[in-house]
């Protein structure tokens, strides 16, 4: 098993990446009942958001009187595989954007509608609906050179100590996954099921919400929703999970 590295306080923490064949989805650690909840769409509470997302997909949005479907047609066809390759590079921003930002970009640029606030019900519903179309598809390994510096930035953020607790993401999720912290089982922390129905939240939430929760636990400053730091982290995490299967929308404790 993994050795517990006693990392010196000086210098950035640099943990070893989890070997690709040892990666483990959070699904594997779920209780039997939670697994059953995720496996059955009619039992998974996240389906409530997916259905709302489907309705929003077909709904004409304000000024341009255009729905997602008007450009993208049937989401079960056009959105297949999309979530598996996001965050993606946006030439307009000259940086990566995640799925939530992409949806808002479509709304502002093509539907002449106001962007949906992060973590709002409607944005979560649309993200869950689009993400659902990639269920069962493997996360694509990025070949986009433009994303490389951002993946490195994400890796830096993942590897550095933060907050009053002064731990890095890597120390828990690369070095000590499978062990416990304050009684809670440490997962490897792969984003392959987002947005998730988290039992702790009693609702659906995004990866950015979860990352902010982690930072809160470290008593570190929370990056703002939609910030470059969080998108770079999302990008790094999804690449760290390359090849793993999308489970969106997953159930997690």
């Amino acid at each position, binding site marked *: 098993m993994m050795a517990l590295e006693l990392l010196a306080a000086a210098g950035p923490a640099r943990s070893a990446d989890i070997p690709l064949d040892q990666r483990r989805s959070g699904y594997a650690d779920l209780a039997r009942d939670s697994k059953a*909840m995720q496996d*059955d769409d*009619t*039992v998974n*509470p996240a*389906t*409530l*958001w997916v*259905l*709302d997302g489907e309705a929003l997909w077909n709904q004409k949005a304000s000024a341009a009187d255009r729905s997602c479907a008007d450009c993208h047609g049937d989401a079960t066809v056009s959105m297949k595989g999309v979530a598996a390759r996001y965050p993606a590079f946006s030439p307009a921003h000259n940086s990566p954007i995640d799925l939530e930002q992409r949806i808002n970009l479509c709304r502002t640029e093509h539907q002449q509608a106001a962007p949906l606030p992060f973590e709002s019900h409607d944005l979560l519903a649309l993200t869950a609906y689009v993400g659902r179309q990639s269920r069962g598809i493997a996360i694509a390994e990025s070949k986009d050179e433009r994303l490389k510096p951002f993946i490195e930035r994400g890796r830096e953020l993942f590897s550095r100590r933060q907050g009053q607790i002064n731990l890095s993401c890597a120390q828990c999720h690369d070095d000590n996954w499978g062990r416990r912290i304050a009684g809670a089982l440490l997962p490897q922390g792969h984003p392959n099921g987002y947005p998730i129905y988290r*039992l702790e939240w*009693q*609702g659906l939430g995004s990866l950015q919400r979860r990352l902010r929760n982690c930072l809160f636990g470290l008593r570190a400053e929370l990056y703002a929703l939609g910030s470059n730091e969080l998108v770079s982290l999302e990008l790094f995490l999804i690449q760290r999970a390359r090849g793993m299967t999308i489970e969106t929308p997953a159930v997690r404790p």
Partner: protein
Amino acid sequence: MARPLINVPVKVKRGETFEIKTLISHVMEPGYRFTTTGARLPRDIVTSFCCSYNGVEIFRADLSPAIAANPFITFFTVATESGTLEFKWTGDNGFSETAAATITVE
């Protein structure tokens, strides 16, 4: 919000037991939680659920604040005749939601 999710088999053999699964979107605010400024969030829950099969009530449940959000209620019944299963949820603040599903008994 989304309509309730109902899962019943489309066809059942006469006399067989089948499972009915229901899931409704509801915040189920227990009334014991507080905001960060100290104000109490008032109770807002589903208080009762019932199901009737061709007009005859076959299942009823009273829900308490202890029930988690988006209550998932499942139960079994015996297939008698083809027809309609009707579901009704009532709760605080005049909450009322209904759903129906048809079943074919052969």
